[in-house]
């Protein structure tokens, strides 16, 4: 959570809101924030920390682990129309990569800005070539995009 918070200024600049959610109570969130998170990130966590008692919301999102009784690490990108554009679900031992989150958001925002006229190939970042899907592109991606552009 702290790493996402550290990238929050960038996310805010992109017009992105963050909602963190776990099965803990709001009281637990407050104390965790007070004694630990606020010491990891300057200014503390700048977004709401939601409570999902019993994992009811997590169950609907397919991230609730009944055995452990917790919501596992699931990250959903939701666009301004309320459509889920991306989902990433990890078991608890491995953390997320906030920079990859930002890259995906940039790509989804770019596609939305072009109303789908442009799509973003593997590893796309702002400034890299996009693809314009259509009959003319069939069989010719190799001419306009190189595998090295992914990296």
């Amino acid at each position, binding site marked *: 959570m702290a790493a996402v918070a550290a990238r929050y200024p960038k*996310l805010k600049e992109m017009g992105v809101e963050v909602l963190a959610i776990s099965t803990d109570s709001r009281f637990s969130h*407050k104390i965790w924030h007070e004694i630990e998170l606020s010491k990891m990130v300057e200014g503390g966590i700048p977004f709401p920390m939601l409570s999902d008692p019993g994992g009811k919301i997590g169950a609907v999102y397919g991230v609730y682990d009944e055995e452990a009784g917790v919501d596992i690490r699931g990250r959903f990108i939701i666009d301004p129309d309320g459509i889920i554009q991306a989902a990433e679900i990890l078991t608890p031992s491995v953390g997320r990569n906030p920079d990859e989150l930002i890259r995906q958001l940039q790509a*989804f925002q770019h596609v939305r800005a072009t109303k789908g006229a442009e799509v973003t190939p593997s590893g796309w970042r702002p400034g890299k070539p996009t693809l314009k899907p259509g009959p003319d592109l069939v069989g010719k991606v190799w001419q306009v995009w190189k595998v090295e552009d992914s990296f």
Partner: protein
Amino acid sequence: MGISLTFGKLSEVQNVNAKGGDVEMPKRREFIAGVVGGSVGLFASASTDASVKGGMANMPQEVDACVRPAAGPLIPKTAGETQPAKEVAPMVPLARVGKEAPDFEATAYIPGEGFKLVKLSDYRGKWVVLCFYPGDFTFV
């Protein structure tokens, strides 16, 4: 102590206030306000104000707007309407990429603001990153 307070009379609550100096008490009173609501809730928030003036003057003043339980998952009933999903069993995952994000209402702690109810659909028109995580105080 906190539990007896829940059932205590207003005067007993005032007694505890009068002892003062106990910084844990405002949090407990906020909790009681959340459970009992109504007039006691109003009283509790007023006494919290007093504590803020006392020992926590440099802290931002946070509010407790969670005076009722959150609805949790909300599922579509008819066009444009939603209802709490607890009335519908069993719970199956509904979230899919490319589909509308299932709506929900949850209680939340917002640093600097306090306890509030947050509804996903209130964020319509904005990009949202919804991050589930296994628990507070976990290491990763």
